[in-house]
């Protein structure tokens, strides 16, 4: 994850309390989604950014996951995202996200 974005996530988790934050991702692939999710839960796996070694354990989802999708009005989701579901491998993304959440998410 971009270093500036990591910095902002860290600051916001401190400001609002990690239990109050939900991170929502729009990654193009399962692996990239998993890496971003890992960054905001277990720390930056690339050891480059401000979240290196910081285990925030944030609640994190991809926008195409049912948990998030179900909270979005259908017509809005259809207009903004639905066509990308034809392009993305949603199953792969869901599997990666679930695995990371199960292992590292605290909230």
């Amino acid at each position: 994850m971009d270093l500036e974005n990591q910095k902002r996530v860290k600051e916001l988790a401190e400001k609002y309390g990690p239990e109050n934050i939900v991170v929502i991702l729009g990654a193009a692939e399962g692996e990239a989604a998993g890496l971003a999710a890992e960054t905001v839960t277990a720390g930056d796996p690339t050891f480059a950014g401000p979240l290196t070694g910081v285990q925030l354990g944030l609640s994190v989802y991809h926008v195409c996951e049912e948990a998030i999708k179900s909270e979005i009005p259908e017509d809005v989701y259809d207009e903004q995202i639905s066509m990308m579901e034809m392009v993305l491998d949603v199953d792969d993304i869901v599997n990666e996200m679930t695995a990371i959440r199960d292992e590292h998410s605290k909230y």
Partner: protein
Amino acid sequence: MSLLKDKKLIIIGDRDGIPAPAIEECLKDIDAQVVFSSTECFV
């Protein structure tokens, strides 16, 4: 129970996936506050 209700939302979009403003648009009417929104680019 709503997963997002009263939460502070951080959106990390992807230029080649779903960009952050599109996600933001989806969450506009939800009872939660978007506190940060950014789109990443790998190319």
